[in-house]
């Protein structure tokens, strides 16, 4: 028998979801992404967030992009670097 799928972070299971209709933690959304997709589409306008982003998350995204940018420049991939720069400026604009 296949072992029941479990969230590695909080040990939440699908059976529990059917039972209490709530998730165990934020990571559960990744673990049960496929199973949750129909419910999310049914409940929501569309399955893509267009609202406000947390500032921390923007910061971590900027950090990531900055690393990528440095890498691209080091590899002399200037076209790629230009694209990353554009993404970076878009991110800073939205704060």
């Amino acid at each position: 028998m296949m072992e029941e799928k479990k969230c590695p972070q909080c040990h939440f299971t699908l059976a529990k979801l059917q039972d209490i209709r709530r998730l165990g933690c934020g990571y559960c959304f990744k673990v049960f992404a496929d199973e949750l997709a129909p419910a999310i589409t049914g409940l929501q306008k569309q399955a893509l967030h267009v609202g406000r982003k947390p500032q921390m998350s923007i910061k971590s995204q900027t950090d990531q992009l900055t690393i990528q940018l440095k890498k691209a420049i080091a590899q002399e991939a200037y076209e790629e670097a230009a694209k990353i720069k554009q993404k970076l400026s878009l991110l800073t604009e939205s704060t």
Partner: protein
Amino acid sequence: MRFSTLINNPADWMMGKGEENDVVITSRVRLARNIESDPFPGWQTAAQRELTLNKLEPELKAIPEMEAGLWQNLGDLSKVQKQVLVERHLISREHAAKSKGCAVLINKKQTLSFMVNEEDHMRLQAMQAGLHLREAYDQLLMAEKFLDKKLQWAYDDKLGFLTACPSNLGTGMRASVMMHLPGLALCDQIKQVMQGLTDIGLAIRGFYGEGTEFLANLFQISNQATLGLSEEQIIDTLSKTVAEVVTQERYARQRLIKERPDFLTDQISRSYGLLKHAYLMESKETLHHLSLIRLGRDLGFFPKSSAQLCNTMLLDMQPGHLQLHEKHQMDIEQRDMTRACIMRRMISSIPAPERPF
């Protein structure tokens, strides 16, 4: 601030302040947020819940707007005290059912209340008198920006803010407006209006929230979807729709004055008479009469100054407030008697209705 101070000081909405307050009683916005690394409250152990609470407490208290507010652990409140907070819309019914490891922080003006470990780790709520959704959201945004710098929220680029229930994903925002629609109800148009609102993706709830009956002609209208729309879109759509319903309600009231003035006068005067003389009155009937007194106030049957009294009566007749005043548990008949007694006393400060047309 202490619990007793909060109880003795009414919030703005209870004073009958705010724009369009003849139809819109309150505007509320709430945001759901969770701490990234912690399990959601419903899946936490008691010890984990305490840990989350300890993380949030200092950050929430440090928000400038919350200075001198009331920090209240739910475990330290009696059932009646919690019920009073529910009736004032400062905590949800779900939150009132919880105790240890759960808390609420309320600012001095009672416009902001932050629930810790409700269904999500954080439920930030702002409430304004009248139709002021934008202002309510701006107030929340200030608090959220402050918290953003300190806490790492559970967030996903595609799904937005992650919440215990998928119905709150994305913005985590629920904007809602409490409307008083006696005109549309008396004209038998309320069903039609409600259907129209449902069709454009809005939810309608009764006075006491989800799944409750429509009492006192009070309706809570809110957004259904939280993901796939921006905060601005949610607020704009709701504000515009509510403004349209306000127009329809005022039109219905004018129609009643023109087409059925005697019926209208009878309804309002009858409610006044019953509230003034009844000896036992159950909650549902009281709510009905209070709705007509409020309508009478809006139409000029009673002085403008009675607005505050309408709201006070609406609160004081509810079970939690009744028992808080009486300071003891009561059976149903005792409650009906006490309620009628309070209503008789309060209504006597409003002069008999005078037909203004």
